[in-house]
């Protein structure tokens, strides 16, 4: 078996309802809409640091980053969004990158950068 298939379907709509709005700090001007199962749904929660044709980029410039439920929930929502859009999710850990945070993101399926983003 080259590739294993997981339990698809997830809880996309649940996430969208749960989160509601989130005030942006340096909010991304992109309107993000997830298309799933033939339905299009706006994601009001997304405050993304960058969206390109092929990827979502999230920058974490935090001095003492650590794994927390809030961090995991946010990464999960962004992963759900990226998977729904069929784009990559990149996390930029620019100030601190504790091993467990890096590893948890890697295992979740997130591309993790430990340098500064270009530009």
């Amino acid at each position, binding site marked *: 078996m080259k590739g294993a298939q997981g339990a698809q379907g997830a809880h996309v709509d649940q996430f969208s309802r749960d989160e509601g709005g989130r005030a942006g700090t340096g909010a991304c001007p992109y309107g993000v809409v997830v298309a799933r199962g033939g339905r299009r749904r706006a994601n009001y929660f997304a405050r993304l640091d960058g969206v390109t044709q092929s990827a979502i980029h999230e920058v974490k410039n935090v001095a003492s980053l650590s794994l927390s439920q809030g961090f995991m929930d946010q990464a999960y929502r962004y992963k*759900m969004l990226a*998977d729904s859009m069929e784009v990559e999710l990149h996390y930029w850990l620019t100030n601190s990158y504790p091993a467990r945070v890096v590893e948890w993101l890697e295992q*979740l399926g997130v591309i993790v950068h430990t340098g500064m983003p270009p530009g």
Partner: protein
Amino acid sequence: MNEDDSIGLVLYTRMNLRSAGLATGLIRLFLEHAEQFSPNSMEMDGRWRRIDNDSLEEAVAYWARSYNVLLQRQVDYESQLAVSMGGMASGGFNMVDFWIDASFFASREAISSYLQFCVALHDLLKPVYGNIHQTGDAIRMATVDHPKYGPTVMPVDLRKGLPDIYWANFFGPEYASSIGLDRLLTAPCHERRMLEDEGVLLVVTESPLAIRREQQHAVKNHIGLSHFHDRLNL
């Protein structure tokens, strides 16, 4: 403690980890069979709450309405348990991560009891795939110097193949079948064990702290490179 030095377990499963019964079973397994390193508090709404048999019901109720939960222990042996339940990990799985301070693995008895506990965890969660590794080393194994982005840790994607060979490796029944039991059970490893679900556990060396890259490569070559995702090849 230095997180790089911790020993990490990851299990990918299709089981519904939000089920109250499974959450109860998982917490009880830690509390009752891993006394030396079991997490003893759980983050609930941003606060750390002690978990024991008296508070189990409250912890399980919180767990069952969450998508991610985090539990920890801050005294010897320090540990952390992260459970991700939305079916979003590595191509659509639920994921259980458990880290423990490497200082726990100082004796054969400790390593043996830890492995026994991990097999019990495996039997409860029936993972498709899992592994146990030294955290810093596993990150180095997944890191490339990306020409555009610099140092980059490439993600696990089980849809594309297995990530690598680590100290201990849990192959679920689907992988055991596609790789072949004969091949897995003849791998050049310290320990090869059939599991309850017809999967296989391969433990490359006696201690997770004394594994060499050439030993990992030998096992990987024996299994067949076609089963692995060459994620460092940009």
